[in-house]
């Protein structure tokens, strides 16, 4: 046989495409031709594959080698084709036995070592979809792919291992499918001193999936609170975990040797970040941005008013649709991005405008301008705004720890279940997703609660937009308190969770 076919997978966004690597060895001048729209890294594969083969004790054919990656129309990039090309060249020389159902993913070092590549987890998931029986992955990428059931994942560290397995026709026993790693919640809410209001606010936000804005002077614990929100969110399901880990795999942010986790991700881009880094981009491979890395978790932006123009507003579309579609020359790529947005801001440029605000040196105009840097349409989506004040001397003096994340999480899970049962029939899952028309029809609060809101509307203390937000939050509070519908007290609580919102509206 001078023609061999080997299977691998390439990714466009999260979507995998099955790629057939065809290798033809024919008489003629020694040479190597790679077909099928390869990019620079892929075109260099020739020299890596050649050295890897020779240094693993295999033979490089001094003939005309033609490698075709089909389908040919799909642009291919990256170094993950090295291993399948090497195997194909060996098969075309008849030095390997026939096999079927194996997929290969990996970059080769000049010594034949198999190096880690990005996106192994989504590639393994795709290989399973294409009916692969077994997939060879770089040893360093094994930990991320071992939670995938229904396909044998073989971790290999050297080309010699792969050829030995194929020649023997025997493969290492398949490692057991790993359960998710449940022990990564290292931040606990009990570290936070005091902050009763803010604790309550993040609990309600976690129940309803409400976006959140912290306002407070520096050093009061805004970041600390935000970092601990993942610890009170319900654990991700297996499918969600795999989806989240797949996105992180493409971004290359998974650690080798660490199994994937069911803790919702926490992503906090710096406020100088660019819109591209926020939503994703890139010319050869479209990489996910911060808002996709925060999928099913928290996107925390500290010092939100300091964000560059357009950075916060670039989040409006993903907030609306729950996904980002990025179009580049190589095509359109869609990444999921359903996240809970948490913004933190100082109350004014100098940061001291809280309490009585005595030491604040900002003019009233600059204070107002400061928070106005967060645009109206974005604030429209933020249901809860909390003032985080410095803890009192009583709170600091007490040696007691606050309530632990575990007990808060138990309440959140229970309340979410209540809201899920109620909302599911209407086509949404979280209280933050209830559309305004339904809030005035089916999802009204109890009569006294509605009256309270109507009076506030009449007195011009509440806008129509604010009216709907209060109701949504009131539903989450009702779920926390196990009420059938929001009571007057629930509505008032919700109203107090948006204190000062009128500054913006």
């Amino acid at each position: 046989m001078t023609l061999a076919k080997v299977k691998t997978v390439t990714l466009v966004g999260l979507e995998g495409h099955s790629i057939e690597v065809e290798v033809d060895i024919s008489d003629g001048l020694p040479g190597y031709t790679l077909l099928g729209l390869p990019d620079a890294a892929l075109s260099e594969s020739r020299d890596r594959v050649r050295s890897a083969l020779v240094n693993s004790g295999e033979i490089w054919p001094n003939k005309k080698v033609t490698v075709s990656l089909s389908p040919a129309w799909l642009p291919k990039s990256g170094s993950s084709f090295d291993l399948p090309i090497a195997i194909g060249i060996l098969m075309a020389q008849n030095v390997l036995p026939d096999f079927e159902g194996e997929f290969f993913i990996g970059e080769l070092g000049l010594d034949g070592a198999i190096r880690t590549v990005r996106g192994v987890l989504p590639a393994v998931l795709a290989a399973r979809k294409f009916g692969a029986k077994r997939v060879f992955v770089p040893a360093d990428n094994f930990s991320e792919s071992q939670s995938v059931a229904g396909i044998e994942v073989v971790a290999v560290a050297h080309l010699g291992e792969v050829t030995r397995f194929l020649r023997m026709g025997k493969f290492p026993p398949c490692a057991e499918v790993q359960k998710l790693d449940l022990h990564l919640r290292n931040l606990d809410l009990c570290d936070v001193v005091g902050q009763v209001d803010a604790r309550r606010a993040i609990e309600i936000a976690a129940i309803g999936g409400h976006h959140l804005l912290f306002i407070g002077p520096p050093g009061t614990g805004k970041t600390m609170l935000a970092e601990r929100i993942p610890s009170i969110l319900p654990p991700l399901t297996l499918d969600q975990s795999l989806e989240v880990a797949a996105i992180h795999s493409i971004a290359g942010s998974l650690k080798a040797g660490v199994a994937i986790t069911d803790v919702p991700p926490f992503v906090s881009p710096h406020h100088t970040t660019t819109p591209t880094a926020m939503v994703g981009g890139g010319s050869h491979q479209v990489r996910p941005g911060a808002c996709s890395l925060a999928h099913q978790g928290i996107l925390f932006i500290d010092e939100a008013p300091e964000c560059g123009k357009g950075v916060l507003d670039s989040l409006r579309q993903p907030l609306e649709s729950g996904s980002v579609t990025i179009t580049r020359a190589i095509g359109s790529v869609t990444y999921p991005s359903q996240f809970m947005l948490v913004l933190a801001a100082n109350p004014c440029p100098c940061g001291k405008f809280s309490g009585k605000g005595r030491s604040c040196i900002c003019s009233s105009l600059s204070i107002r301008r400061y928070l106005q840097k967060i645009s109206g349409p974005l604030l429209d989506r933020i249901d809860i705004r909390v003032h985080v004040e410095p803890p009192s001397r009583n709170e600091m003096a007490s040696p007691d720890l606050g309530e632990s994340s575990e007990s808060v999480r138990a309440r959140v899970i229970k309340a979410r279940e209540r809201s899920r049962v109620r909302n599911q029939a209407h086509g949404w899952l979280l209280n933050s997703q209830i559309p305004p028309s339904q809030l005035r029809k089916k999802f009204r609060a109890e009569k006294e609660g509605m009256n309270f809101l109507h009076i506030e509307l009449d007195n011009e203390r509440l806008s129509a937009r604010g009216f709907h937000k209060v109701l949504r939050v009131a539903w989450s509070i009702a779920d926390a308190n196990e009420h059938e519908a929001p009571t007057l007290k629930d509505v008032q609580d919700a109203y107090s969770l948006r204190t000062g919102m009128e500054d913006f509206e």
Partner: protein
Amino acid sequence: MVTKQEIGALGEERVAKYLLDNGCRVIDRNWRIREGEIDLVGLTPEGAFLFVEVKTRSSNHFGHPLEAITPIKALRMQRLALAWLTLNNHWGSDYRIDCAAVFIGRNQEGEIDYRKGVL
């Protein structure tokens, strides 16, 4: 001491013998014009002209001999072949461009790797 010209001549001798053994005639050798040289011109029993580039190596340390034939050199062989056909009044005849690698070791055995129709 064997010079590299002698090694080259030895290799061409081996290939000429190989062609004769395979029923071909050798009708020209080391044909040279300003643009370059054709090592061997042969004629198959079917009447097609062969233009053979011979690469001789006494060791494999510097890669396969045929790797030394770059696409540019291959195209030059094409032009030289057409020039030979024109100047020898065979324009329009069938022709083929071949390459041969000759390995000359200590025992001067002269193993041949012959590739037909490389263009």
